[in-house]
């Protein structure tokens, strides 16, 4: 193995033509099995909680096996092959709506990520949600989510992608609000739905723009049209920016990031699956999937990079001062999604997708670890934890592995993916590189803070003092995900030859930059150790010394407050006006149409007298009319 080092990239020859191969039929089973599980749980096994859970786990387990199979088939077929399977729904004239699935390297990797994490989370939930009365409902929603997410990943057309995109959003809403009888989850669910919907509006407009100008809904045809230069650059820029709106909402990028921290009100396994590993990554996946659109517009790429860079840094700084362990992880997720966007904006689909790949495992691990802790101590506040290293050694060690991977330390997987991003960003823009490096300092600091405060020292709360290690069904997924967090980074060389857009990127090894960038998280970690283990410098003294900065971070840059003000003062007043217009003008028009239809019917009914003489008159009158028409027609 080559020594660790920074990666540099050189473009190889232009990609050869894509060949499309008819995919084996089991492709349909991958989203089909979880969908079937949803139906079965909903209709049949709902009264039997454990049976429902078993149905969900078995379905996603089989889905995982088929995904692995598909992945191997894709690797064997090579990166220039697309496995596709489509069924014509019906055909008429120029309209050929197809229902189809397609797998290329990009979606093959996503399949593996989604099914692995989903399987781990569903197994883990057997323990975490054990006492839950709504367990059947939980597994039904999870199964529906998996089906929609897998359908999204394998979509072959904009329509299907959009439908699945909205479906995962719906499942996210249902699962955030799983405990709908409490106020906070119900409110958070609403907030998530509405905020992402704001981005989806742009997304839908983008889809419509692309599809109407390219004249097709299918990715391959649109790509061919754009490749042939049939769309002018300004349209491409506008389309890319509109599509990116969807990604900003779904992947919680600034300024639509506000819903993700609140989404932590949902059950922790849901946070791990939907709000860390899969659905929130859908925005990144979508931008990578449509690289053929984004790469046509440098302006759109720059927008993606800047939004990603800003998100990466700002979310990381907010994470520095959070007390709720899940919220730290939530801001960390936002920040890491920012890194992925940054890489995509800098032009490297490989780097962005590889970070998505590694991040899915270690972030799911961290959430599940946090879940195990919350399960044991019954609080989210890390200041009421402490000393858990002794009582929960499995959780501690796996959580530590996840933290090191997230902070980007060698030889954990996060090192490889983050380093590749940094190399690309350095070549793209030094300013964004500085932002990214600063973010990586914060990352190491806030993860160090969580580990030191929650697991080291002595127990500060009653729950922490009597904490017990998580049961086996919860430990197992932690250990597997920890193993993956260590191991998958070494795949980077082959990954680069497998997942790329346009031109293949070769990973080269540089020692200098890697060593330099390793020092940054190390410094962050040491500072966290100094502050939270040795109390020097004392964190409270620091926050008193710089109250302005501290309050700015505590209030998350006042973004939520600004939105509240905006909604109260501007949107609500505007809405009141619109509401008046709607009630008095639009409803008036709608009711008018209904009234007109009713009146027309009411008047016409007098034609139907019930007297057979009139019927006869109508028949012969009709014949006379037809004859007249025929004469007129003949005279033409």
């Amino acid at each position: 193995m080559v020594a660790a080092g920074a990666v540099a990239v050189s473009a190889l020859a232009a990609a050869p033509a894509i060949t499309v191969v008819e995919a084996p039929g089991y492709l349909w089973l991958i989203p089909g099995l979880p969908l079937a599980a949803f139906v079965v749980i909903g209709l049949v096994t709902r009264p039997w909680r454990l049976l429902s859970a078993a149905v969900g786990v078995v379905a996603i387990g089989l889905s995982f096996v088929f995904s692995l199979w598909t992945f191997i088939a894709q690797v064997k077929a090579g990166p220039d092959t697309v496995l596709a399977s489509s069924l014509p729904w019906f055909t008429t004239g120029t309209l050929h709506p197809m229902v189809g699935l397609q797998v290329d390297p990009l979606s093959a990797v996503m399949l593996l990520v989604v099914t692995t994490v989903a399987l781990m989370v569903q197994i883990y939930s057997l323990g975490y949600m054990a006492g839950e009365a709504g367990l059947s409902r939980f597994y039904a929603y999870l199964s529906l989510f998996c089906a929609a997410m897998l359908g999204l990943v394998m979509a072959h057309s904009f329509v299907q992608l959009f439908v699945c995109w909205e479906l995962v959003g719906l499942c996210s809403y249902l699962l955030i609000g799983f405990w709908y009888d409490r106020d906070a989850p119900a409110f958070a669910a609403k907030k998530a739905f509405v905020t992402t919907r704001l981005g989806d509006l742009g997304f839908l407009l983008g889809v419509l723009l692309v599809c109407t100008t390219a004249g097709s809904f299918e990715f391959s045809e649109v790509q061919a049209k754009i490749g042939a230069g049939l769309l002018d650059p300004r349209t491409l820029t506008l389309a890319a920016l509109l599509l990116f709106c969807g990604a900003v909402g779904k992947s919680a990028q600034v300024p639509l990031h506000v819903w993700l921290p609140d989404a932590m009100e949902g059950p922790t396994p849901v946070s791990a699956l939907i709000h860390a590993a899969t659905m929130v990554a859908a925005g990144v996946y979508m931008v990578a999937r449509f690289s053929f659109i984004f790469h046509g517009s440098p302006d759109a790429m720059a927008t993606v990079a800047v939004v990603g860079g800003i998100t990466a840094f700002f979310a990381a700084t907010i994470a520095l001062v959070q007390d709720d362990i899940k919220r730290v992880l939530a801001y960390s997720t936002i920040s890491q999604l920012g890194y992925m966007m940054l890489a995509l904006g800098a032009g490297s689909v490989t780097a962005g997708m590889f970070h998505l790949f590694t991040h899915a495992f270690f972030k799911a691990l961290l959430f599940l670890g946090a879940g195990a802790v919350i399960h044991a101590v019954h609080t989210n506040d890390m200041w009421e934890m402490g000393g858990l290293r002794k009582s929960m050694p499995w959780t501690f060690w796996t959580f530590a592995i996840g933290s090191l991977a997230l902070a980007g330390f060698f030889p954990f997987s996060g090192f490889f993916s983050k380093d590749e991003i940094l190399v690309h960003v350095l070549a793209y823009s030094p300013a964004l590189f500085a932002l990214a490096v600063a973010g990586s300092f914060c990352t190491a600091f806030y993860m160090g803070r969580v580990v030191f405060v929650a697991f080291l020292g002595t127990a500060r709360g009653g729950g922490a003092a009597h904490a017990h290690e998580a049961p086996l069904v919860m430990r197992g997924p932690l250990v597997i995900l920890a193993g993956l967090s260590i191991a998958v980074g070494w795949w980077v060389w082959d990954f680069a030859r497998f997942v790329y857009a346009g031109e293949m990127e070769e990973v080269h090894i540089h020692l200098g930059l890697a060593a330099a960038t390793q020092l940054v998280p190390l410094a962050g970690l040491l500072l966290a150790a100094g502050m939270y283990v040795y109390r020097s410098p004392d964190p409270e003294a620091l926050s008193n010394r710089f109250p302005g900065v501290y309050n700015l971070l505590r209030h998350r840059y006042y973004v939520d407050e600004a939105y509240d003000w905006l909604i109260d003062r501007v949107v609500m007043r505007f809405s009141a006006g619109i509401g008046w217009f709607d009630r008095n003008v639009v409803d008036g028009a709608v009711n008018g149409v209904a009234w007109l239809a009713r009146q027309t019917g009411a008047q016409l009914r007098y034609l139907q007298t019930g007297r057979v003489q009139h019927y006869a008159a109508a028949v012969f009158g009709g014949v006379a009319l037809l004859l007249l028409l025929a004469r007129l027609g003949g005279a033409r």
Partner: protein
Amino acid sequence: MGFPAVDLSVFRVEAILLAGIGAGFLADLIRPRNWRSPAGWLLLAGAVAALVAAFAWPVPNASLWDGVFVVDGLARYFKILFLSALVIVTLASLRDMRDQSWAGEYYLCLGSSTTGMLLLSGANELVSLFVALELTSLSLYVMAALRRGEPKSQEAGLKYLLVGAFSTALFLFGASFVYAIGGSTALRDLAVAGPLHASEPLFLVGLVFMLAAVGFKVAAVPFHMWAPDVYEGGPTPMVAFASVASKAAGFVIMIRLLLGPFRVLQEDWTLLVSVMAAGTLLVGSFLAIPQTNIKRLLAYSSIAQAGYLLVGFVPGTPRGVSAVLLFLAIYVFTNLGAFISVIVVSRSAGSDEIAAFAGLSRRSPLVALVMMLSLLSLAGIPPLGGFVGKVYLFAAAMEFPSRFLWLVVLAVLLSIVSLYYYLLVIRRMYIEEPTTTAPIEPGFTAGLALLLCVLGILALGLAPRYLLDLAMGVAQGWQ
């Protein structure tokens, strides 16, 4: 003149059905007084056997007696259609007719009407066409009046008969004009002679008269007025059968006549049919709204559906014909699904008012679901069969957007109006509170019929390809 001997095995489908009808008729006569009539079960057996035979041993193409009767793709397609409708309607009738004193007559008429339709689908000559049509219609008139002691039923039968008599007269008049001009009653000869006489006014008059008679069969405006009264007064299973089978019979005649001898007058009949289509759509859609009786509502709904069918027929192309064939097949399952739900509900409620459907979802979730799917399919909501059917009809008319665009736009707009009154019924079933909470049981046979309808609606909506290819093949092979 002597006809050459023919191979009568080409009538095997009809023969099997007749055997079932005959056995039922005899068994009904000789049964002990206190036994229930077995005619229904025997008719069902005959119908199922005939359907199986039509599928498993299809009759090869044939032409009998110089083309008086033919067996071609079109005939085979419609025979399967009529027999499917008969099987489903018989299944749905069994429970309803069990205690009726007139059950024997009912099944006899149902069977003979279907026999008429089977003959009609192969009739290729004006006289045999007329005889088959009359066999079909007379049986239906009798059935409409079968509910003895029920004034509305008597009224329905009488009105049906009278208005039917006008249309019969029109058909005969038209046929005699055509014979006078063309010198033959065989459609094959007339198709050859037609172009020579295209300019004869009487030929055109013949077309108009026969078109009016067909308009009566399919309940097209202005020949539709019998439909609401007959639908309201007739026994519901008979109405269900008439609403789908009689309509399909009308379209067989239309295809054979307008695309045969009258092909040469296509310029003329396109105008007539499109005007009829527009009027039919308007009247069917708007008059359904104020109805309070579910059977009257479905009567107007089926008038509107005839309008959609006419829109697809207007271009007269193979694609148009295939769209009509596909829609008719989908319509069989969709409309029967709705009518059988009505049979089940009005049996237990003792009323045909739409109000009887209030809260149906809580009294019988299954029946409410079937009714909802059927109504949504009638409205043309994807992914149900009705959606696919409408798309094809409109697409066929859109082949000539310069000429028929206005008609398609009108049809699409009126689809929205129709959604309104279908949703009114769905709202009653799902949102309103039931007046009583007593559950409604469809029973096994009617339940089976409902299941068949739902399967048809879903299968034809999700995977219409097989039937579409079939319909396309029939339409192209026939032309």
